[in-house]
């Protein structure tokens, strides 16, 4: 316990924390930023090009057909939405559990949530076939007199994902208000002062403000905690409520939620490790943070592993020939390579996190995080494709593979995610300044006195 690194390096004061974090935004743009943002922006162009092509030519440009009607699209949708869940976990659940190490990573984890949900949202819409009538998903009094069918998980999904996006945005913005006020007060540029001033809405850090603010923040955390669990449960219902072998399983909701947190923490590490090095923020995002995240990743990875084992066990124990065939087909069929790669990435690779030396090495953690990201993508691919491609009737079996347009959509959303992330770290404080002040020794001294 004694050699645990601190959650903030010693010697910082409220002033130096403020200056150091706001300097990232207020000092000029580093040259690498233009290159990095430019590269991401090119991928955004690729995304727009692909979507343009998709809207002109139709869904046929993707590899999906009968029997495999869901392919890369829904894989990517679930992958992105899962990534978002770690942000909510860090900002809401760890707040309720009073884990104050979250204070230096919650802001960009929340931003990650928001951008991941934005990327996820593109897929179901692109996949509609007629995306221009996507408003048919919403209950509104149409002249056709038709309404959504609320017994369908696909309709639940619309409500779950849109609520999640709204609440994540509100939570993120509420967290930003005091920091926007700091930027308004610190920035010397007139235009910046006006923009931050408008966004801060006249926040002045009054005791009365903080009183309501803290209450609202806690309430939002309390609302977001069950919400995040519900969102991935509803996503898993998209599968579990169907009758397809490999989907129709009660383990899906908990197993999906654990997988979401697993992949989300992997993504937080993927972002945090390079960011803290680029901006010299090792004093705020310390090795302790990386180690804690590695531990969460290991724990959720084990839950996911349990999910894989239970799926196989239930297929055998349930004595249903279609389920049994599905399990065998997953392991030995035409997609066996993807299945075993996913096992290598999600089950075997994270086991090195038991070793303390690995948890302490940012470079090693970065590699593991990337491997888990890939593994979790493969997991969704395997669940979707291997279940659909051989279901009940051998006469309607088929094979599936993505097309170049599937790849370009995926690359495009990665570009969109990175471009939004680069804009965020350039214009907004990527670490919550006021929450960092609150964990400083000078603020702590006040609490202890009581």
């Amino acid at each position, binding site marked *: 316990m004694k050699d645990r690194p601190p959650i903030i390096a010693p010697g910082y004061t409220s002033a130096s924390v403020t200056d150091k974090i706001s300097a990232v935004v207020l000092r000029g743009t580093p040259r690498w930023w233009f290159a990095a943002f430019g590269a991401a922006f090119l991928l955004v162009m690729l995304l727009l090009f692909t979507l343009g092509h998709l809207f002109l030519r139709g869904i046929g440009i993707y590899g999906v057909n009968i029997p495999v009607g869901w392919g890369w699209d829904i894989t990517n949708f679930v992958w992105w939405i899962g990534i978002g869940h770690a942000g909510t976990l860090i900002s809401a659940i760890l707040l309720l559990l009073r884990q104050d190490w979250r204070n230096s990573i919650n802001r960009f984890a929340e931003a990650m949530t928001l951008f991941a949900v934005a990327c996820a949202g593109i897929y179901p819409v692109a996949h509609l076939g007629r995306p221009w009538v996507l408003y048919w998903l919403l209950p509104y009094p149409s002249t056709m007199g038709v309404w959504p069918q609320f*017994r369908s998980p696909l309709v639940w999904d619309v409500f779950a994902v849109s609520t999640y996006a*709204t609440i994540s945005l509100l939570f993120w913005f509420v967290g930003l208000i005091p920091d926007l006020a700091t930027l308004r007060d610190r920035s010397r540029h007139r235009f910046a002062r006006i923009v931050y001033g408008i966004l801060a809405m006249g926040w002045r850090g009054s005791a009365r403000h903080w009183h309501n603010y803290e209450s609202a923040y806690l309430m939002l955390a309390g609302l977001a905690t069950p919400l995040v669990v519900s969102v991935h449960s509803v996503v898993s219902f998209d599968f579990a409520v169907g009758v397809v072998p490999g989907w129709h399983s009660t383990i899906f909701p908990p197993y999906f939620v654990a997988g979401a947190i697993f992949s989300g923490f992997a993504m937080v590490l993927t972002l945090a490790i390079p960011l803290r090095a680029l901006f010299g923020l090792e004093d705020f995002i310390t090795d302790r943070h990386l180690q804690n995240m590695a531990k969460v990743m290991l724990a959720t990875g084990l839950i996911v592993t349990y999910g894989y084992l239970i799926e196989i066990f239930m297929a055998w124990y349930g004595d249903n020939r279609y389920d049994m065939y599905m399990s065998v087909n997953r392991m030995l069929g035409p997609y066996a390579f993807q299945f075993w790669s996913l096992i290598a990435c999600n089950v075997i690779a994270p086991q090195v996190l038991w070793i303390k030396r690995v948890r302490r090495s940012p470079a090693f953690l970065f590699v593991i995080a990337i491997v888990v990201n890939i593994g979790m993508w493969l997991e969704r691919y395997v669940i979707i494709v291997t279940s659909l491609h051989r279901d009940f009737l051998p006469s309607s079996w088929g094979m599936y593979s993505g097309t170049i347009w599937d790849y370009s959509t995926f690359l495009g959303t990665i570009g969109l995610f990175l471009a939004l992330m680069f804009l965020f770290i350039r214009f907004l404080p990527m670490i919550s300044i006021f929450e960092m002040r609150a964990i400083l020794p000078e603020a702590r001294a006040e609490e202890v006195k009581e």
Partner: protein
Amino acid sequence: MTRRQPHRLYGMMAEFATPGDLVAAAEAARSAGYRRMDAFTPFPIERLSEALGHRPSRVPMLVLIGGIIGALAGYGLQYWISAVTYPLNVGGRPYNSWPAFIPVTFEVTILIAGIFTVFGMLALNGLPTPYHPVFNVARFALASRDRYFLCIESKDPKFDEAATRAFLADLRPSGVFDVEP
């Protein structure tokens, strides 16, 4: 700008270097009989609200109201659509299939409660505030960095420019400022 009449001041503000000094000053001001005052800090300090005598926040009540509205609206929407205006037979299930309506009811509950939380908090705080006199004090920009301020408003019945200035100076602040309206 010409110096205004003393009674035209918004209030009197004292600056402190540590949160402890500010809490002590707020307690002293309250026991001296001042009521219309506010403190400004770079991060939330729980004891400050007690020291200033603030009542418990009304945000949780708003969240509850929002949640109840959301739950009723969410279920009501589904009931009205599925059982009243557009009854569909889906696999022989009842029109009012309440178990299937739970997920959307839950999501709408959270959505409306969350919106009530955020906009309720902003409304209770009077935000957005396009103009506020405390910003007329140049040093006040540090309230969002590392300084702690206590402001006694001139609306306080006990406020008297000379006496209040002397009172604040007695609390060993690092500065006392007039707050122009």
